[in-house]
């Protein structure tokens, strides 16, 4: 299990920067370009700002958008946490953490409340975020309307005219086919009553955490070259219908390791006989709860 691999140390201290790299890998001009896009993204919550995404030393789909944002916001004083599907110890999280240890000499942590910057793939930590923390999402497809309308010229206009009827039709078709809204991840949200936004493929379980969050939330799509943001204390509403209100996933049982009844659970297959186990997807949350109990 992932929980036994994680070391109990709260912070891995800052290390020496590899002298062959500029601080946090990117050159200063690239950072300026991304920084200008970030300020625009915060000023227009939920709107996708185009940016000149660079090639990174990792393939698209591994978080190149998130990595470019993290590289542009990091200072030498930051403490970085990286999670992939809630876990600190999966390949993507480990390699991005090592990337910034090497190129920024940055202190890292596995602990949610200790981190100042958290880069995430497809989860929001269970532990409530605080003002001053920054959550950086890795985004594969930033356009919530893309599967409904493939042309960028058209989706741009749909956002301009607030023409979101098509998205409601999609959710309605879910209901007519399945009896309920069957979208379970990348569930569309309305930001500050203006822009419909893709929250990245987080489970809809995490959607309510985006609303009025004290932390700054930044989204980076490397392949699609878009940056968007939710400022702290901003209204984020999951789309729904009066007679089919938005609902989050629920489980019949608590986490089998820590007993949490309020966290997002992963189903883990234990053997060839089909034995299964439900455990927290957020490894830090699960481990900190287990430590308190033991």
């Amino acid at each position, binding site marked *: 299990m992932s929980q036994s691999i994680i070391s109990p140390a709260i912070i891995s201290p800052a290390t020496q920067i590899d002298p062959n790299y*500029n*601080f*946090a890998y990117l050159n*200063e*001009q690239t*950072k*300026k*370009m991304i*920084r*200008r*896009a*970030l*300020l*625009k*993204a*915060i*000023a*227009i*919550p939920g*709107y996708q*700002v*185009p940016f000149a995404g660079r090639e990174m030393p990792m393939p698209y789909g591994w978080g190149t958008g998130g990595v470019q944002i993290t590289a*542009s*916001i*990091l*200072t*030498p004083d930051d403490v970085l946490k990286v999670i992939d599907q809630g876990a600190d110890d999966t390949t993507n999280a480990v390699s991005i953490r090592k990337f910034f240890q090497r190129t920024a000499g940055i202190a890292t942590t596995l602990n949610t409340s200790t981190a100042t910057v958290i880069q995430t793939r497809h989860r929001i930590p269970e532990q409530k975020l605080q003002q001053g923390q920054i959550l950086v999402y890795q985004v594969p497809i930033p356009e919530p309307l893309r599967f409904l309308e493939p042309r960028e010229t058209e989706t*741009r*206009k749909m*956002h*301009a*005219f607030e023409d979101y009827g098509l998205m409601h039709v999609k959710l309605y078709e879910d209901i007519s086919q399945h009896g309920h809204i069957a979208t379970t991840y990348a569930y569309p949200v309305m930001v*500050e009553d*203006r*822009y419909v936004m893709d929250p990245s493929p987080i489970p809809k379980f995490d959607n309510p955490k985006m609303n009025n969050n*004290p932390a*700054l939330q930044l989204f980076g799509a490397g392949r699609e070259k878009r940056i968007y*943001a939710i*400022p*702290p*204390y*901003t*209204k984020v509403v999951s789309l729904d219908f009066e007679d089919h209100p938005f609902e989050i996933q629920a489980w019949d049982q608590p986490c089998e390791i820590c007993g949490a009844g309020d966290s997002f659970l992963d189903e883990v297959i234990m053997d060839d006989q089909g034995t299964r186990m439900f455990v927290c997807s957020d490894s830090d949350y699960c481990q900190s709860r287990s430590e308190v109990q033991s």
Partner: protein
Amino acid sequence: MNSLPATGFPNPSEDAAHSFRSLLTAMSHPASIQPLTTNLPSVAKLNPAASLIALTLVDHESTVWLDDDLDDETVKQFFKFNCSAPLTKQPNQAMLAFFSHCPSPQDLSGFNKGNATYPDASTTLIIQVKSLNHGNAVTLTGPGIQTEQALKVDGLNKNFWPWFKTNQTIFPLGNDVILAAPDCLTALPRTTKIAEAN
């Protein structure tokens, strides 16, 4: 050229990282006062906060507009030497506009407000003010502000807040404002609303 242009950050990478972080915090917590992270000298009439913003955000891809008081050789030399910035006198061409003092609403009418498909194309206005510690208080609300935030500014003319209110009505278009005092800065993104103006 009879003098060397004013220099940039002593430690370009780290200083820019710290100053951007304060700009990021200012924009995500509108009207919060952010201290300057690097001590810089004034460059002619360009104050330390405005030169910090210039060094952090301006490069060869960002067209800069300077008001008449800033449009002198020393300041232009600073922008060209440190930022490789293209300078323009056309307000609607500017990505960033620097003002030595608060402009009138008429002065601001020509700047790019973005368009419906690309509201991010608007000009960001950097306005130098005397102080962010005293002056008339304004109460602000909006994204990034938990309940409400008071802001005291000395150096804005009386037409600024009515202009800012109008700017808010054309959301998602509109200009974002950064106020640059000699020793600190704050930001007013286009989403910020005025609760009451005294």
